[in-house]
């Protein structure tokens, strides 16, 4: 097995994921899943507009990473940001309201799906420009490093599509050069928009791209939440001790198209068995059932609670109003 391949055995041995943590992760993943499935439905019914990118199938990364972060740790995300926002603590109702363009939204309806920000919980910004968040995260980590005695860290989520852009390489170099407390979390779903990674680069694994910079780096199965949790936890401890930048490559699966409404003519759908093997929720549920942490009834209750929360968020969002143009214009300058 190549050095960079996922090592589930090792991750499992180190994970020590207890019952409470596992149930929390399940809850987070269900909240993201239900939120996004509801968003997809709203888009289909033309009740929600704009460019919407869903992370269904990739919830394990958002949950496994963000559960271990504090509010003062900064997260930068990209265009597929709903999961990261919810996992980092953004209130679901204000997130849904934001997607709906309501003044009650996180960003008063001025950002939308691709530009979620919730500074109160350390979500410092999602960006619609692929990889445009990477330099920002470098700057945030520089500020963290210059704070005397602090141990807060910066995490930046990006897809494998960002790795071929110049700003990825510039950012990786700066982070390594300045030994920043920054963790690069790559969600490698093997697809950059409509084309497979193999059509964009001969380098299969992102960990190999940063090898010359001597990053501490790991590839994990992103559908295995325990593995993500364990690998990220180890890197987080290093980052808090100011041991340079880290890269965590999570191999994930993008269940849906690049954006909602995408015809997806470029790929074949997975059959149910293949999907079950890649669904981070199904996998953690199975593990938790095996370990007798979770009854079927409790599993259903977690999903049902998430669905109810989403419905309440949709109802609240529907009642919201957009800012007036005059009100919006006040946000051009601070």
């Amino acid at each position, binding site marked *: 097995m190549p050095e960079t391949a996922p090592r589930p055995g090792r991750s499992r041995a180190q994970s020590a994921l207890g019952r409470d943590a596992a149930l929390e992760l399940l809850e987070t993943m269900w909240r993201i899943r239900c939120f996004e499935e509801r968003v997809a439905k709203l888009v289909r019914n033309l009740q929600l507009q704009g460019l919407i990118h869903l992370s269904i199938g990739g919830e394990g990364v958002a949950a496994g990473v963000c559960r271990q972060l504090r509010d003062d740790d*900064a997260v*930068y995300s990209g265009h597929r940001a709903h999961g990261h926002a919810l996992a980092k603590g953004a209130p679901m109702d204000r997130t849904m309201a934001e997607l709906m363009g309501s003044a009650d*939204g*996180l*960003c*008063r*309806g*001025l*950002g939308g799906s691709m*530009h979620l*920000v*919730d*500074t109160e919980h350390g979500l*410092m*910004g999602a*960006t*619609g*420009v692929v990889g*445009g968040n*990477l*330099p*920002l*995260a*470098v*700057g*945030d*980590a*520089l*500020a*963290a490093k*210059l704070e005397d005695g602090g141990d807060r860290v910066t995490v930046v989520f990006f897809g494998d599509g960002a790795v071929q852009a*110049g*700003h990825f390489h*510039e*950012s990786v*170099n*700066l982070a390594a*050069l*300045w030994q920043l407390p920054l963790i690069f979390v790559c969600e490698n779903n093997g697809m950059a928009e409509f084309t497979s990674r193999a059509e964009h680069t001969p380098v299969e694994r992102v960990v190999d791209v940063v090898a010359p910079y001597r990053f501490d780096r790991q590839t994990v199965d992103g559908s295995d939440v325990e593995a993500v949790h364990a690998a990220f936890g180890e890197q987080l401890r290093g980052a808090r001790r100011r041991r340079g930048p880290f890269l965590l490559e999570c191999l994930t699966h993008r269940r849906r198209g690049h954006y909602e409404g995408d015809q997806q003519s470029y790929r074949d759908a997975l059959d149910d068995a293949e999907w079950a093997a890649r669904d981070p929720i199904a996998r953690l549920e199975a593990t938790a059932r095996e370990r007798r942490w979770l009854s079927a009834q409790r599993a259903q209750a977690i999903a049902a609670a998430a669905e109810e929360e989403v419905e309440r968020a949709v109802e609240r969002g529907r009642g919201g109003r957009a800012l007036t143009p005059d009100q*919006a214009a006040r*946000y*051009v*300058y*601070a």
Partner: protein
Amino acid sequence: MAEQTFVEAIRTALAQAMREDPRVIVLGEDVAEGGPYLATEGLSAEFGTGRVRNTPISENAVCGAAIGAAQAGLRPVVEIMFIDFITLALDQLVNQAAKAHFMSGGQLSVPLVLRTQGGSGGRAGAQHSQSLEAWLTHVPGLKVVMPSSPADAGGLLLSAIADPNPVVFVENKALYFRRAPVPERLTPIPLGRARQLRAGGDLTIVATSRLLGDALTAAARLAQEGIEADVFDPRTLVPLDLDPLVASLRRTGHAVIAHEAVTAGGFGGELAAQLQVAAFDYLEAPIHRVGAPFTPVPMAAALEDAYRPGAEEIYRAALSARRWEGCDEDGAVVAAGVPALPAATHDPPEG
């Protein structure tokens, strides 16, 4: 008041801001060594290389890192060595910095200064000589400052650093080593206040950066011929202090706007449009613009000298405005006793 060069005033302002506020950091290529024009010379010795950080030649990520640091509470002053290279940083500047406050509904702010310098005259060719400030004025969320004197540079830089918004501070390399009086202790000059440098009742001249000195030279020559000009430096393009310019134009009825940038699509066009709406009933001639022709900046000395607008062009435009009679069939200005001025269009000049 002691005399300082433009770069000395920049350095004085940076050091003063860094002493007063530990959140101020400086980053850019070679800044710890002072940079090619020595604008940051000595800062790393006083403040250390933690706060005065050399960066690799990575304009995009360095600009983005400065934005991220600003969002995290620092007050970075990032240097892009030549404005020509700002193209490499525009994604971060335009898509991130300019929009962060708006798109976050006011949660984020970007107290960033991006210092850069432009302008021709160094025989450096078209990739180290441009004047690209008009692009930046087109982006809501950015502020754009263009000082013309050492004292203004120092005072405006202090305000730019204290501003909670991203400010692009555009210097001109031809001004860097000119000396002028600068206060012992700099005080901030507010952004958005034009400065009047000469008063007259016959003509309004508005000039930016290097062209301000040329405007004063032209105004002195015009005075010898009995034409007295108001001369203004807007100092900041965004925000723009339009009121004193409008008031002047309503008195004089004639205006010349001068900048070093290519005339077509330049900031002078925007300023002329705003002025003509506010002073339409008072205009006695079309507002005249002085700028560079629609070609890249040429390298050869004779070509570059011919290309660069200056006092002569402002003088001729002023005469043309004062003696305007109409336009010919091709739209060229006809003015008594004044040779035809090149048309300010997107057509390269005829050979």
